[in-house]
Every structure is written in structure tokens, then in C-alpha cells.
């Protein structure tokens, strides 16, 4: 179980803080900032764009680069990162027996650090039946089909704790989702959605996150809307926000009728948005304002 209780010296912590303050003269966002967790694990926050997926992006940027000095610092220190509490709760759930089969996740999958490594980086992923599933679907499928337990709510505490814990097992690995073969039609659907101008404000994802990256929309500094940092701890909500919950919020803000969390539409959109972040490092759990 990676980085849950990092052993770390005080000297490292202060070195980390010093490095941060030396960059303080630069205005936010700081595209030259380095995301290093606990002074040890470097996470890629800038990746080259490409002509097939993101022909209109000069480069791929993690949302971390767009946040304030304080918020960035919080994510660099696992003791400060409030999302780590959810990840710890997820670790607990991993070993907890639940359901009529009397089993825990660990009983089938063993040590998550090995068996779950890289899983988050390839999500969402087409299952054996040809259906695109998000990580939440895989989790709930194990619960209902193998454990005889009840499905968790998409953005309920148990699920976001589990996805936080699982994402941590892919921390630092590059986003590498499959977009061809059986995934191709889902990817196309997601792309179509990304450029659709929903709602009474008629704003597409691209209008805000591609055309306006780096600009201010009232008090908010627009990033590329990448999901490599999810699940994320949102300071505003004082809790973990799932990918689909974030999508809902953004569509609602266009004065539109949103889609449901877990819907076909949001899973397709998730695949497309994930692919726009190919090469960015999975942040495990991030902190956002």
C-alpha cells in the first residue's frame, strides 16, 4: 500500500517548503512548478500534446499547475493532503469482509499495491462484454457479483474512499487509456459531448477548458479540466469529489440539464477526457480549491 504512511524526515519537509517559497515570485498558475510528493515522488504535470487527440492543445497540463501556491503545497505533503484520510478509509475497506460470501477485496486480490497497480491509469476500460466501465463499475461488480454485498452509491463515502485508495496504487504512472478497438465508439461519443454547447449559456467543455485555459471566469482560473488528479479533495466541498460529480457541476453551471453520475454519457465523456490527459501522471489523490 503505497504512500499511506510515508516515512519522512523533517529535513526533507523543510527542503520542500523552501523550494516552494523560492518560486513564490511567479504568479499563479506556475507552469514551471514541480509536483513532488513528500520530496520523493515526482509526478508529471506537463505532457506533450498530439495531433489525434488534442490537436488544439499546445501541451497537456495538470490542473495542479493552475492552483494557488498554498493548494499546490497541500498536495505535496501527504500529512497535509486531506484526501489521504479518504484513502486510508479505503485501505480499511479493502480488508473488510462484507456481503453474503464472507469475503473482502483482499481475499481475492491480495496486496493492492501489486494487484491494483496501474488500474487507475487505464480507466475507464471496456469490460469482457464490450461495455465501457469506470472504476466504480468494476468495484460495484465485485461487490454484487462476487461478495454478495450491496452496490455503493457512485459518489458515496465508501466509493470515493475506495477509488481514492485504488488511485493511489497508480500514483505517478502515466495516463494510458485505450481509445481504439472496442473503445473507439465510446471515445467518439465522448468527443462529441466535449464539443457540444449545452444549456442556456451554450458553453461546451472545450469553450472553457480548451479555448479559455489560463483565463479567469470570475474568480476561477480555468485549467484544461484534466482528470489525472481524481478523485480530488475539494476544499470548497470539504470532501472528495468524483470525476462524474465534477462533470455534473460543470454542466449544471451552463444552466443545463445534467447527466446522471454513472450514466452511459458520463462514462463515454470520462474516456474522452482521460485520453486528453495521456502521459500526465496519475496524482493518486489531489487537492483543489
Amino acid at each position: 500500500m503505497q504512500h499511506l504512511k510515508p516515512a519522512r524526515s523533517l529535513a526533507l519537509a523543510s527542503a520542500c517548503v523552501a523550494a516552494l517559497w523560492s518560486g513564490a515570485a511567479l504568479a499563479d498558475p506556475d507552469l514551471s512548478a514541480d509536483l513532488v510528493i513528500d520530496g520523493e515522488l515526482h509526478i508529471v504535470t506537463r505532457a506533450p500534446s498530439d495531433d489525434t487527440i488534442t490537436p488544439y492543445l499546445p501541451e497537456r497540463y495538470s490542473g495542479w499547475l493552475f492552483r494557488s501556491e498554498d493548494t499546490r503545497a497541500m498536495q505535496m505533503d501527504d500529512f497535509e493532503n486531506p484526501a489521504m484520510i479518504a484513502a486510508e478509509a479505503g485501505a480499511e475497506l479493502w480488508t473488510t469482509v462484507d456481503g453474503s460470501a464472507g469475503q473482502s477485496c483482499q481475499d481475492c486480490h491480495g496486496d493492492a499495491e501489486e494487484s491494483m497497480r496501474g488500474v487507475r491509469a487505464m480507466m475507464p476500460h471496456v469490460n469482457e462484454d464490450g461495455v465501457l466501465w469506470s472504476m466504480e463499475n468494476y468495484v460495484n461488480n465485485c461487490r454484487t457479483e462476487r461478495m454478495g454485498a450491496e452496490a455503493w452509491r457512485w459518489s458515496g463515502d465508501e466509493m470515493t474512499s475506495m477509488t481514492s485508495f485504488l488511485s493511489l496504487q497508480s500514483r505517478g504512472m502515466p495516463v494510458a487509456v485505450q481509445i481504439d478497438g472496442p473503445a473507439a465508439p465510446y471515445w467518439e461519443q465522448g468527443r462529441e459531448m466535449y464539443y457540444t454547447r449545452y444549456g442556456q449559456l451554450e458553453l461546451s467543455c472545450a469553450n472553457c477548458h480548451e479555448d479559455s485555459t489560463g483565463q479567469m471566469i470570475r474568480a476561477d482560473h480555468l485549467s484544461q479540466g484534466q482528470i489525472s488528479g481524481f478523485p480530488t479533495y475539494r476544499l470548497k466541498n470539504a470532501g472528495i469529489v468524483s470525476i462524474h460529480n465534477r462533470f455534473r457541476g460543470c454542466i449544471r453551471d451552463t444552466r443545463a440539464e445534467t447527466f446522471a453520475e454513472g450514466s452511459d454519457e458520463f462514462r463515454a465523456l470520462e474516456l474522452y477526457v482521460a485520453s486528453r490527459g495521456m502521459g500526465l501522471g496519475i496524482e493518486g489523490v489531489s487537492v483543489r480549491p
Partner: protein
Amino acid sequence: MKLNAVTGLVAALVLAGTAYAETAPADVVWVDDVQIPESLTGAPGNAEAGVAVVSSRAQGNCVACHEFAALPDVQFQGNIGPALDGVGSRWTEAELRGIIVDAKHMFPDTRMPSFYRVDGFIRPGDAFTGRAADPATFGPLLSAQQIEDTLAYLMTLTE
């Protein structure tokens, strides 16, 4: 008696004026596809009320995307669109009314929302609730009066 009758007549005219002159979104008359010469209320707007429309989240929230140097007290002004300082000298009144009513006439594909239009939306919602809009109560983002007030304010921005 005589005076009362005159007052009554004037009141009736004013009432008729507001009741009949307000132009519904579907009846807006465009000239050259980008100008709207006629006031939507039949009367000039109030620039002071226009300040509230451009700066309030609950109304036009123009400051979400535009900076107004003339409103230094309004916090968090965005920069998705150009700063609106001097906009009253850059455009005619008819053009500015057109831009506020439906900017997509002047700037096709612009990110600026259409403030006085009620059709052609994809999945329109009930304000910011995330639920579907109710066609029976769905209205434009701003009223005819708010559009005229905003216009009156923008016309004062001449430098």
C-alpha cells in the same frame, strides 16, 4: 375634474406604453443582422440599474467574463472576453443592443451567452439546479428592461 381626467389619460397612456411596447425575444427586429435600433421597452434604460445587471451574479454577471475599469469595487472580474472600457465609443447603440441581446449575430461562435433568446438550446436547464427547464416558465437570461439598463450603462463607457 378636468385635471383628474388629464392625469387619468396620461396614466392610461403610460400603462399602454409599457404593456404594448415591450418586444418579446421572438419579435426583435434586426437590421443588417447585427443591429437592433429599437428599444425593447420603448423607452431608454437606466444606467445605474445597468451597473447592477453587469456586476450581479444573479443578473447578467457580465463581470464573469469582462473587466470594467470603471467598477473597481466589483471583485473578481474575468477576462474571457475583452475589457469593456470604452465600449460606448467603439460601437453604436444599435450594435451594442444587438451584442447584448444575442452576441452570436455579431460574433458567430462566440463564447458569450445570448441574453435575450429562448429557443435553440441543447438540454436547457432550470437555472443552475441541473434539472430540465420547464418550457412553461422558461424565459430569457435578462428581461427587456435589464437589457435596456445594461445598454444605457455601456453607453456611458466612452473611454
